[in-house]
């Protein structure tokens, strides 16, 4: 279009000259034409015989001779405009380069004085000619430097000049591309578009490409990272054009690679700062001379603005660059799967997969797995059957805590790579752990055990997973026969695992735990000692050891073990809960209450550090992930998280710790017992300042009743509500201690605290019932127990108490029914057997009663202070 226009102008110019008989103008015009002809022929020639880097051009010389003829004709006699003379010379120099006559080209460049040429208000094409001229000059200088044997000092100087040429070439090339796009856009806007006149992708050609990229290639070759990174940033900061999109994508990825592979926080400087004078990044053997700032009158446009984001750290910058290249890689990924496009698809997939890998490295460093899973999800549309990205997607979902989807994606990964034992192991870890899909977990684990030729350590893990699935199923089972057969299977699997991998402490530990659950205490003690020899400070092994000792009624030893474990794990709440139980058993209620108080302090220091508004995983740096992990993983509260009861959970954390502290004070202040005041006061001092005093308690209750109404919605198990469950549990333990020493008022206050958090928890209702019993309100107690059972129909302790209350009310047959149900659910609860015996005795069934009493006696001899099943069972 533009060419045609200028052509017509030229035609009219000729016509005018001929009309007005301005014959002296005609040769000038003709020269201009021969200049054009020469340029066109040269470019045409280069298009047909593209120059490869590091090889001299070959091709029919005939055409080149023609080019020279035209150009010299243009330059021949003097009467050409200055800028056309310059242009002709530059094209001639380029021609000399193509011919391999480098010094001739250089002499032409010095004749023209490139640096003095105007950049402002020139036609767009001249920008291109100049960019190419600088690039060609750099190429010529490099070629000459190769052959020469000069002193190092001169060589250095020469290199500086070469780089300066390339950088200028690059800058002008960027400017040229921006200008062409601008012109093109205005053309489109001013004209009605013709169908099919869409933008033809421009090809840069050898000279412009070299000009844009050669400078940083030289920098990196010389080990000068600082300057290389600086050059990369300059190119990237220039406003993008359609032609530079691919270049930007590559450069963004390369810069990200350098930031991740070769830089660290200490050596980083942000893109708007000046680079450091001396940097450990640069090869010390290479002298670093200061370059003169490039004297260019017109720079390419860069991204500017008031509030534009500028990274402050190397991972931040890498991430920004990778997100930009990801969006491009994603856009250019080939979606069609027809065979003709197969190679295209693979190329695009490979470049995208490099970007996603770097993204994973960058985000992994900062623990941002949630974001990573979102990024990888975007890749899924073009990664059909591509194992690597699918697997990475599954792992990112797992790391982000999205277990359900992770299992689904892992299943696809298993299909793609059926012989890798890690994948089904990961899936069964999720099924057994957060998802509690035991049958699924079992199936995944069996896939691993069926891989007979695999290394023994993986198969051992497989058996461990199988055993855990059985063991957990046994705990859930309601029929005694099923329970026993599952326990037997679990035991067998753990034994297999232990024999396959005798150095794995987990195998020994779970074997011991399984034995303990089926009350084989001495055997269990043997294996737990073995586990502790393999891993001396494993928290679960120590806990199990303490429980086993308590089952043998060595309570003091058990407390000592717990204390020892607590010195290694001071913030482990399950250990602390067991400690409360043990202490009220052998050290008296005062000690137990002190432990409760201590737990409240720990809870405060654990969870108050973190801002409740951003609590939850993946929202902060890795240490938060650690903190959450530490606390959440170790707290499994079987009483609270019975799989079948459905977790009650506060849906919002809006109330925050300050409010709960406030209600805590409210509820404790009427209590006149010294210990309680003490407790609340320490809590007050621990919280520091209570700024929420104006907020009425009723508002808290309102918020929480809203919570209660939304309880039915399914919540992720490992969510931010876990801390609140722990808090409620602490209060309930304190209540239990109070009930144990016969103080109903204090117990009620504690229960109220828990009830504020979880009003519909069966544990809360159960404790209320116990308080009612303590006060002698048998009828009320019965009501509470019935409510608790309506929420959790298999809560054995409630059933036991209900049986007892019914017995007291004289309703023997109903009591018997309830207690028999309880025995069905858990056949090792000796209190239930005892109560059942009493009921049967009262009914006159002495024979059966004796049986029950004997069973109770036998079970009591091996009963731990808290059930063995509170120890978490996860892979």
């Amino acid at each position, binding site marked *: 279009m533009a060419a045609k226009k200028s052509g017509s102008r030229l035609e009219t110019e000729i016509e005018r000259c001929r009309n007005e008989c301005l014959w002296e103008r005609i040769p000038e015009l003709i020269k201009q034409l021969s200049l054009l002809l020469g340029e066109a022929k040269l470019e045409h020639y280069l298009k047909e015989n593209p120059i490869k880097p590091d090889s001299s051009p070959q091709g029919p010389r005939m055409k080149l001779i023609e080019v020279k003829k035209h150009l010299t004709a243009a330059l021949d006699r003097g009467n050409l405009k200055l800028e056309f003379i310059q242009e002709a010379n530059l094209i001639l120099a380029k021609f000399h380069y193509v011919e391999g006559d480098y010094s001739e080209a250089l002499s032409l460049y010095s004749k023209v004085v490139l640096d003095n040429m105007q950049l402002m208000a020139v036609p767009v094409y001249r920008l291109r000619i100049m960019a190419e001229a600088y690039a060609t000059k750099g190429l010529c200088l490099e070629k000459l430097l190769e052959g020469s044997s000069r002193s190092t000092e001169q060589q250095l100087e020469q290199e500086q000049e070469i780089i300066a040429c390339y950088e200028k070439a690059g800058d002008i090339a960027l400017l040229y591309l921006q200008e062409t796009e601008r012109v093109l856009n205005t053309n489109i806007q001013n004209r009605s578009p013709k169908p099919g006149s869409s933008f033809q992708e421009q090809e840069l050609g050898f000279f412009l490409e070299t000009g844009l990229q050669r400078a940083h290639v030289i920098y990196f070759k010389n080990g000068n990272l600082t300057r290389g990174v600086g050059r990369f940033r300059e190119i990237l900061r220039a406003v993008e054009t359609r032609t530079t999109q691919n270049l930007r994508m590559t450069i963004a990825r390369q810069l990200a690679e350098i930031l991740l592979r070769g830089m660290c926080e200490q050596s980083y400087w942000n893109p708007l700062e000046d680079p450091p004078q001396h*940097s450990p990044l640069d090869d010390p053997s290479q002298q670093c001379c200061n370059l003169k700032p490039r004297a260019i009158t017109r720079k390419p446009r860069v991204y500017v603005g008031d509030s534009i984001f500028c990274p402050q750290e190397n991972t931040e910058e890498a991430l920004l660059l990778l997100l930009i290249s990801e969006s491009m890689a994603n856009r250019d990924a080939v979606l069609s799967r027809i065979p003709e496009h197969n190679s295209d698809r693979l190329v695009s997939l490979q470049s995208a997969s490099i970007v996603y890998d770097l993204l994973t490295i960058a985000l992994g460093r900062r623990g941002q797995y949630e974001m990573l899973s979102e990024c990888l999800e975007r890749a899924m549309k073009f990664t059909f059957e591509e194992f690597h990205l699918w697997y990475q997607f599954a792992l990112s979902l797992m790391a982000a805590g999205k277990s359900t989807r992770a299992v689904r994606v892992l299943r696809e990964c298993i299909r793609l790579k059926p012989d890798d034992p890690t994948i089904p192991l990961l899936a069964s870890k999720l099924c057994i752990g957060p998802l509690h899909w035991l049958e699924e977990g079992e199936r995944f684990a069996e896939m691993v055990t069926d891989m007979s030729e695999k290394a023994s350590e993986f198969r051992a893990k497989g058996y461990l997973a199988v055993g855990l699935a059985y063991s957990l199923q046994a705990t859930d089972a309601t029929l005694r026969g099923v329970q026993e057969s599952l326990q037997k299977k679990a035991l067998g699997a753990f034994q297999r695992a232990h024999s396959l991998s005798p150095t794995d402490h987990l195998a020994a530990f779970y074997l011991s735990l399984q034995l303990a659950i089926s009350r084989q205490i001495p055997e269990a003690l043997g294996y737990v000692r073995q586990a502790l020899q393999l891993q001396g400070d494993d928290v679960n092994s120590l806990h199990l050891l303490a429980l086993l000792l308590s089952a043998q009624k060595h309570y003091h030893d058990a407390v000592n073990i717990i204390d020892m474990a607590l010195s290694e794990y001071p913030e482990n709440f399950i250990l602390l809960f067991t400690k409360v139980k043990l202490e009220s058993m052998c050290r008296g209620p005062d000690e137990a209450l002190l432990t409760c108080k201590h737990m409240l302090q720990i809870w405060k220091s654990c969870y108050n550090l973190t801002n409740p508004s951003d609590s939850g995983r993946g*929202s902060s740096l890795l240490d938060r992930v650690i903190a959450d992990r530490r606390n959440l993983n170790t707290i499994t509260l079987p009483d609270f998280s019975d799989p079948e009861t459905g977790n009650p959970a506060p849906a919002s954390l809006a109330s925050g710790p300050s409010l709960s502290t406030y209600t805590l004070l409210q509820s404790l202040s009427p209590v006149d017992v010294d210990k309680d005041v003490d407790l609340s006061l320490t809590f007050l001092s621990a919280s520091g300042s209570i700024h929420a005093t104006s907020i009425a308690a009723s508002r808290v209750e309102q918020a929480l009743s809203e919570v209660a109404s939304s309880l039915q919605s399914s919540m992720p198990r490992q969510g931010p509500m876990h801390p609140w469950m722990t808090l409620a549990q602490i209060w309930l333990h304190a209540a239990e201690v109070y009930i144990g020493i016969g103080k109903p008022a204090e117990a009620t206050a504690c229960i109220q605290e828990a009830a504020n958090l979880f009003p519909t928890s069966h544990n809360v209702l159960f404790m209320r019932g116990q308080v009612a019993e303590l006060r002698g309100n048998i009828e009320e107690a019965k009501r509470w127990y019935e409510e608790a059972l309506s929420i959790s129909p298999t809560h054995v302790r409630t059933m036991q108490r209900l049986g007892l209350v019914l017995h007291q009310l004289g309703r023997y047959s109903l009591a018997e029914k309830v207690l028999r149900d309880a025995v069905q659910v858990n056949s090792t609860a000796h209190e239930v057997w005892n109560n059942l015996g009493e009921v049967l005795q009262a009914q006159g069934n002495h024979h059966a009663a004796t049986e029950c009493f004997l069973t109770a006696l036998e079970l009591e001899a091996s009963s731990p202070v808290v059930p063995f099943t509170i120890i978490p069972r996860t892979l």
Partner: protein
Amino acid sequence: MLVVEEWLSEFKTLPESSVSSYAASLNDNHSLVSALYQVICEPHSELLEPVCHQLFEFYRNGDVLLRRFTLQFLPELVWCYLSVTATRDVHSSGCIEALLLGIYNLEIVDKDGHNKVLSFTIPSLSKPSIYHEPSSIGSMALTESALSQHGLSKVVHSGPHDQRETFTAQNRFEVLTFLFLCYNSNLNCMPRLSLQSLCHMSSRVCVSGYPRQFQKNYKDFSSRIPVSPECMVQILTAVYYAMYNGEWDLACKTLDDVLYRAQLEMFPEPLLVGNAIKNSVCFDAVKYSKEAPRCIQVEITPTSSRISRNAVTSLSIRGHRWKRNEATELKPQEELMDISEVDEGFCSRASNTNIAISSGGNKTPAGKSQRKSLGGRSGREKEMTTEICREHLVRKQTPRATSENLELLSIKRLTLTSSQSLPKPGNQSLANTVTTVFSKSFEQVGGVLAANSPASAISGNIGDSNRFSACSLQDDKLALVSDRADSHISTVQQHKQQRSPSCNIHLSTDM
């Protein structure tokens, strides 16, 4: 060992002024460094305690070079500490423990002794940066999370960290992870010997006690060492750096060991990062394995796309959709092509509703101006007229500005009308307001048009088409209204049919 003893005494007598020159000279003292490594490796060495003490003094001194000097021994110190805790030989590692905790406690506070909080901004493409403009990134998926974070950059914090007096099993890896974080932020200053030591440490921590150990030569030690996933990720960061900075072969082996352990522990985090490193590395293997240190390389890459033009990509699909939509657009959209997809979605939806309305409107009596031009034509015919009208517009060029003007105007009216009608949930009044407001807005539009339009002959048509787009814009807000008055929809319908024909348009879009 003599070197070490000299070193121990030298620093004590050093005057304050010459600390920095002394620090600079230390790093070149290779015999000293290797002697120190020997001391640290030997748990029962008499020199261990004074050495640890001196290293801590260096760290406390605050001089950057002295700090780095101490930090280079971190991997070796960590290995000694972990191997000793695993064998429960507690007494011999006391001074190493103290040194590690000392470094940790110094690192978690800033110069003034306040707890450090590290922050990290997660860049968002929806916010302009020095490298991009949001509008040029075309294909941003409109997911819920993308929308909720639109224009915001998320900042995550790390810290404040607690001071630690002792190592416990619980805080051990928390502290070590933080120490490796510090080490990683100084990676560029770490000598090769330190990187090698890091690789050896990582390999041993990851495989000792596992069957793989027997393939290696770590015979001296055989119990398993627990490790946390976060710590493994930090180790992988350092290993990744070592790969590209002179220790290619060693680091690759270490990577395999870390991956092996991560698989057996079923830790997704190190598996993710390790797999990513391994996958990205396999393209570079040939290039780097034989190279000298500091071998980050870049080559000239062709700027033109390597993908053939006719393969289906996300971009080409997008363009495809556009071409179809253009057929029903009212005006040339060429220049909108490179505006972001948000706009695209909006426009295309608007144009889709256009069609729906025009075809749905055929059964019902049309507005007065409409009736003149369209009479009782079928929907197809009407589409054709819009088509003709569009061609008119394209040819004439000028009315485009007017139509834009009109659209703006109708949008303005829109916000007005919806705010009027929303707060009145009563059925009768609602119906009234909706209808009256509607007809009013059309009158307004028509008025403006009559005044502005240069070609009055097609004014009816333009008004027509404009109204449609106006309606489709109103669609959203009115849907809200109709939701509220859901139960009264039938009465509304009746009213509308009686009162104003233009209401049919609204109803038909609702269907």
